[in-house]
């Protein structure tokens, strides 16, 4: 028993060292976001700001339309998530609960789309979107992502696991197919739905490659693209870059601190079933 306690102490010690490495970039970002330009380019580097510069945050807004980036990111992520979940729920309901010809074939097809990296279809997708004249529009950023094989395949087993008896009882009560979907299936798979919603939202929020090529004007940039261009447009002034990063990170971090359990659960649910 003694040796187990010893081992636990060593484990704690090792984890603490790792913790410092994992959290250091966070501290560095927060401290730097408040530094003045002089502190940033001081040699040897200074760890703590001499004078806390709160106007760094204001300067970011003066430099680029940061509020607009934020608005675009929220709008695109929310609409993409709602659309994607809607499309996925309908498809998963059909695959999980209904009998129809070619079901297995369709399931296999959707499953196989998951293995394909987006970059393979990116160029033709770009050409399709430009032929719709959708470059630099919100629909151009949203519509290509409404189909997501993973979120359909993820929902199927959860829908399947709901007892048939519930569905039969609802049918006897006179419920149609769509009533059953809402009253029986969806209301009994809240945990799976919230997991896939979180997962899909974060996916859209961090999307980078597509908005990089599908937007041209500053007004249509999402947060990740805005941050990328801030490097060239902000003259790589690190304190402003850090202030901008901090502002981009805070909502996600706050969400994470309050919903940590849900985040961890969604990883284990989506990773291993």
């Amino acid at each position: 028993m003694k040796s187990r306690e010893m081992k636990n102490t060593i484990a704690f010690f090792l984890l603490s060292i790792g913790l410092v490495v994992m959290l250091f970039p966070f501290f560095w970002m927060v401290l730097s976001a408040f530094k003045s330009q002089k502190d940033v380019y001081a040699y040897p580097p200074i760890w703590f700001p001499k004078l806390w510069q709160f106007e760094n945050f204001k300067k970011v807004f003066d430099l680029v339309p940061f509020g607009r980036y934020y608005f675009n990111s929220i709008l695109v992520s929310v609409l993409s998530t709602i659309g994607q979940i809607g499309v996925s729920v309908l498809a998963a309901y059909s695959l999980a609960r209904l009998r129809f010809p070619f079901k297995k074939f369709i399931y296999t097809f959707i499953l196989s789309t998951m293995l394909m990296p987006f970059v393979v279809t990116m160029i033709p997708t770009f050409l399709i979107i430009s032929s719709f004249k959708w470059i630099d529009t919100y629909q151009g950023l949203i519509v290509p992502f409404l189909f997501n094989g993973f979120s359909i395949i993820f929902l199927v087993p959860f829908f399947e696991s709901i007892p048939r008896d519930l569905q039969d009882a609802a049918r006897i009560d006179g419920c149609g197919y769509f009533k059953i979907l809402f009253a029986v299936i969806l209301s009994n798979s809240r945990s799976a739905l919230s997991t896939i919603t979180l997962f899909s939202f974060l996916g859209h929020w961090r999307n980078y490659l597509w908005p990089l090529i599908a937007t041209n004007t500053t007004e249509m940039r999402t947060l990740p693209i805005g941050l990328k261009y801030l490097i060239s447009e902000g003259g790589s002034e690190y304190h402003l870059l850090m202030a901008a990063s901090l502002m981009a990170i805070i909502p996600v971090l706050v969400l994470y601190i309050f919903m940590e359990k849900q985040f961890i659960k969604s990883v284990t649910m989506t990773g291993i079933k």
Partner: protein
Amino acid sequence: MMKRRSLVKYNKKETMVAYICLLPALTFAFIFVVIPLINVFYLSLTNWDLIKTSKKFIGLQNYKYIFSDAKFTKSIVNTLLFAGVKIPADLVLSLCIAMLLDRKIWVRRFFRASYFAPVVLPMVAATLIWIWIYDPTFGPLNQILELFGLSPVKWLYDPKWAMFSVILFSLWKGLGYNIVIFLAGLQAIPDTYSEAARIDGANDRQIFFKITLPLLSPIVNFVVLMGIINSFKIFTQISVMTPEGGPLYSTGVMVFYIYQQAFEKFKIGRASAAAVILFLMVLALTGVQKKLGKKHIHYM
């Protein structure tokens, strides 16, 4: 009984409802997956650039071109280098940390939450922090090196170190994901297994290699498969940290090459050829991995 059931005709209304429900998904899949996939093969055989109005069929010339382009072959090497270093390092580190976290230690949940925190950060914002951490003159990393009496490194500006810097950042960013997955796997293994082995005289090493690791093998398979697919997709951190593909193209990966050809040089045909090669490589590698992995794997 079962046989008779399968002979029963499909309910007409049910079939109709099923197809109505599948319609949106299949329509979008058709427009944004099936057609583009066919089209990328076709485009790779044409000489189209976005400026020209006509495209001509030129056979395999694009493939000939990219394979004689030193940048393309280098991008394959760089992608494989990224995968070859990152996947094993990620596997070993995350498994070790997960095993430490599997013990009953103080503030365990705080540890787990902190190791996972970088995963939730937006990639570009996280990249910006590390660009500064890596800054050769003003960055804190070189300062720390000097503290230990080591000579400073030019990180992202040194062709020898640039890829390593990107890998180190990517490890920090993604480690928590695999830790959480391994931890869930470890917690699913009943304690009785290792206790029984201990009574039979097994030591820690034997327990790890004979019990823990074999029981975790489906998860290891999953982590490796995801690692392969994700390595071929890597782009964001490359594009932000090293906008030109790094010194001497030392961080130019395949997606970066495709992006440059298509959207900086407007060579749609060549970019499509490179995308086809990437597709075939992912297909081949996941096929090999599936053959090697004995147990069932879940994709995501």
